[in-house]
């Protein structure tokens, strides 16, 4: 039973990641707003479609239009808000909000972008940044004034319960972080271990190291294909199609082809020992190609993938802390499962070898 604990841990972590990753609800959010343009100086109603909201349960729904601009150093900036005059709840997901927009905007630009903030006691407060454009009516052109824009955003309710963030573009696919990204992390760990075993094989010549290297590469390649497929599922939702010839996708495909060639190469060498040595040398070569292909070239080109072209990647402050609680176990879980699979593979190879030797002797 020794050495069993990490397999139990792997199963538990994977169960946790699958269930928590798929079942924890997203935070309430605003899916769409209609109309998206208002005119100053009029009483207007907008209808809002929420996501995971419970407008009927919380009886006190409040909404603000907030005109905000980033404050410059030493400048007061503009930070003004307008409270809705009436709120009509149409359903759990739908609400109609009326605003009495003042005649003048506090800016002299002729139009301003407003964020919509909705608060209710059940869901807490949530925001759609830059949801609505408010235009200055031409007939009422006048100096900018902040008169009427003095509502205080206060007494906001806190959201309760464990939730993942709601991001308009990602919606439910945000959960793919636990699978797609974790798989690639696990793949890097597996491929690195495979390369390390290849180096150890070339130094020592022990066939056990080569068996381990091959098994780890096998599982790593399988993870790579899963990572590519989960990435395509994600791309289908966020980029519009599963394969858009993005540089990250192309380079990933090339990296996987290089690793596929590893198995072709091994299979076409007659002698076992030669296959091991050539395979080990090629494995190190493939790993050295993997890093620039996945992490350097895509960053030098324009890519849609996070981590390139000024997009934030995962990690650091960009990742929500609830998501961290599933994401990090996901990395560990996938890595442990990968090592487990590889171990089964190399143990089978070792047994086959033993049987062969017994048959020969």
């Amino acid at each position: 039973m020794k050495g069993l604990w990490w397999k139990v841990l792997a199963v538990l972590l994977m169960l946790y990641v699958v269930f928590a990753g798929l079942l924890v609800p997203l935070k309430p959010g605003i899916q769409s707003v209609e109309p998206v343009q208002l005119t100053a100086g009029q009483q207007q109603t907008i209808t809002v479609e929420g996501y995971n909201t419970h407008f009927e349960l919380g009886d006190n729904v409040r909404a603000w239009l907030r005109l905000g601009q980033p404050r410059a150093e030493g400048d007061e900036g503009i930070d003004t808000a307008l409270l809705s005059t009436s709120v009509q709840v149409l359903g759990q997901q739908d609400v109609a909000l009326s605003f009495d927009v003042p005649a003048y905007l506090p800016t002299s630009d002729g139009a301003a972008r407003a964020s919509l903030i909705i608060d209710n006691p059940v869901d807490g407060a949530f925001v759609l940044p830059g949801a609505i454009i408010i235009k200055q009516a031409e007939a009422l052109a006048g100096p900018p004034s902040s008169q009427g824009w003095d509502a205080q955003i206060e007494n906001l309710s806190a959201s309760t319960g464990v939730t993942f963030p709601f991001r308009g573009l990602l919606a439910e696919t945000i959960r793919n972080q636990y699978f797609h990204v974790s798989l690639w992390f696990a793949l890097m760990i597996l491929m690195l271990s495979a390369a390390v075993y290849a180096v150890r094989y070339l130094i020592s010549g022990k066939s056990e190291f080569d068996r381990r290297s091959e098994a780890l590469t096998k599982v790593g390649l399988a993870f790579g294909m899963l990572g590519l497929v989960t990435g395509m599922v994600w791309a289908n939702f966020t980029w519009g199609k599963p394969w858009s010839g993005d540089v990250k996708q192309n380079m990933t495909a090339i990296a996987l082809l290089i690793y596929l060639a590893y198995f072709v190469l091994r299979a076409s060498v007659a002698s076992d020992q030669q296959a091991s040595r050539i395979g080990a040398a090629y494995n190190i070569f493939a790993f050295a190609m993997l890093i620039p292909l996945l992490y350097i070239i895509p960053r030098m080109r324009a890519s849609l993938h996070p981590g390139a072209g000024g997009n934030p990647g995962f990690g650091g402050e960009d990742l929500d802390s609830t998501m961290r609680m599933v994401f990090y176990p996901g990395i560990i879980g996938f890595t442990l499962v990968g090592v487990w699979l590889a171990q089964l593979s190399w143990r089978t190879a070792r047994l086959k070898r033993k049987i062969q030797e017994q048959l020969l002797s």
Partner: protein
Amino acid sequence: MKSFETDEIKEVRRQITLKYIAVVFGQIITLLGLELRLEFRQRASIAGVLLFAIGTVYLFSLAFGSVEPRLWNALYWIILLFGAVNGLGRSFSRELTYRYSYYQQLTSPLSLYVAKVLFNTLFLLVIGTLVWGMLSLLFGNPVRDVGLFVMTLCMASLGLSLILTFLALVAGRVNNGPGIVAILAFPVVIPLLLTVVKLGAVALRLIQQTSTSKDLLLLFGVDLLAIGLALLLVPSLWKEA
């Protein structure tokens, strides 16, 4: 230990190192000379590759009549790539026979590899120049920035030569050698080829120059990576199992 190292010992050690470097360089130059002489006498691989290149270009002229610069660029690099895979894939076919591998014991595998890389780079430069001339003859010469184009050709030749010579050594041990070279080489050279095609397009003024230095740096990085890997892996690949 340090205290025993008198200046005299240091001097001797320095001289031994220098001598070793001189020997390795001598080996490389001798082997390069051998390669050049053999190629000059037999003209086997250059004739094969040139025949392939001429055939392809001629077929294109028959099929298309005229070729616009975009196609010219792609055609040029694809001919160079396939020519390189054909010509360089068999780099070690002679050395890996038993008699020659006995002779090769006299030199270090690294000098042999470096000599092969140098020869193959020269080989690709010659092929590249000839194909350039041939394409210009049939379809006109659309190259506007000759300096950049020549520089790209040099970097591409060096990169292809470094990678394909290494893969030829890997595949030399294998049953279906030349077939394996193609399988191993294509994914590895695709990033190189993409960069080269882009630089070629810049040299033909097909696209605006945006990040030429970055791309050249990328090519240089690929070449450097291949050199480092070869230095590490060639000795262990050379050992007869």
